[in-house]
């Protein structure tokens, strides 16, 4: 599973990081630091919750095929 983030549209709500700082690392300004994350096994539900928490709706989960 992959997390894909439209970083340019991040408005710094930091709601994803409130779900998991590990999956959704922020920069020093509090904006998302990455555009793509490979979700480690066992963290899939956390990744989905973090994606849903984004008020900007810019986090997409790519499920394994």
């Amino acid at each position, binding site marked *: 599973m992959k997390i894909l983030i439209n970083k340019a*549209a991040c*408005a*710094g*709500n*930091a*709601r994803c*990081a*409130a779900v998991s700082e590990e999956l959704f690392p*922020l920069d*020093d*300004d*509090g*904006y998302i630091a990455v555009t793509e994350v490979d979700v480690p096994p066992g963290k899939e539900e956390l990744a989905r919750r973090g994606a*849903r*928490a*984004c*008020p*900007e709706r810019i986090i997409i989960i790519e499920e394994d095929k």
Partner: protein
Amino acid sequence: MSAAANVSPAVAKPAHVPDSLVYDFDMFRDPAYVADPHERILDLVKNAPPIFWTPRNGGHWMLMSHSANFNASRDTESFSSEFIPRAEMAAMKAKLPPGMPHIPLPVPINVDPPEHSKYRTPLQRVFSPKSILALKDSINALATELVDSVKDRGNCEFMKEIAEPMPVRVFLKMLGLPLDRQDEYREIVSQHLSDPSSDARAMIPKLQRIAASMNDTFIARRDNPQDDIISMLWKIEIDGKPTTIEDMQNYGVLLFIAGLDTVMNGIGHGVRHLARNPELQAQLRANPKMVPEATEELLRRYTFTVPPRMVAKDIVFEGVQMKARERAMLFLPAADLDPKEFANSDRYDLNRENKVHIAFNAGPHRCLGSHLARVELQVIYEVLMARLPTFRLDSQRPPTFHCGHVVGVDSLHLVWDV
């Protein structure tokens, strides 16, 4: 005089606005709204069009639905935050005789992208989740002190005694403004925000008054920097140039308005809900870890800010024809009560799966202070649960409210058993 008589006069409807989109609502003085704001908002959500035009306060659009608010907030080319166009502002400044006070421009809130980010970026670090977390212990100590000061009495007027001093003291300290002028600052801000004037130019003297009230501190920090935001802003560069006193005034008016009259009202709405729902209090007392989730649902259920926008060009937005220079209100409280987005939106539901509200707005102007606000809200709810027994509204003195760009609580009398 009846309350309805205070409603602002209606202006004529522009020709391009169809009758079906006209709905009479005074966002400052509608009597039912001022009596119990979120009840009236639920009524509007049910009965008014998802985007409507009201003839009150000079005539303006109200964006009600979640989609309209979400899309307009992110479309800054259609919905501008620059109420006085740049060319006009430049002409006004050019005509000012030498020695006249600067016209403060609240930055970054009244600047559109891409210019917006050059003013916003310098502030982001001090308001980032990490920086704010470092303040949590001192916020907790202040909240505890305030709650303990009324604890043995069995009652308090929550707004004046706790909701106002807590965030205001935190913010003045962050900024570096003197705490002993707290009452004076609060008075200036609440007057500013309760002014229904639809003309941006009429706001200029008020912004100048705010800037003037901070000027001594600006100068003092320039000459003798401390560990605060005003000192930090003196050290930054904008467009490669060091900050000027005019820049400081621009930042100052925004931080002042946004910091001194927002969180306290959020706290007021939340604590009123808790006071009316002892079972929710019991739940949170039994399980304080639920406070952050409870805070999010309180923010959704009682979203309380109404940011204005200026339509920047003739557009058709979600099927509605709007003309350049018309005003549109992002009615975020209605967006977060939109049943299309939140099932049974009127119900406070701690277990609601989707609590993804836009109380802090969406898009580039997302509330800069949202992380501070969240921590303050969580801390005060935690402290109230930990220090006070079950509290309720004083049935003899029901809460009172004010409406406008901030939907706020004026008084909130609480009682508890001692």
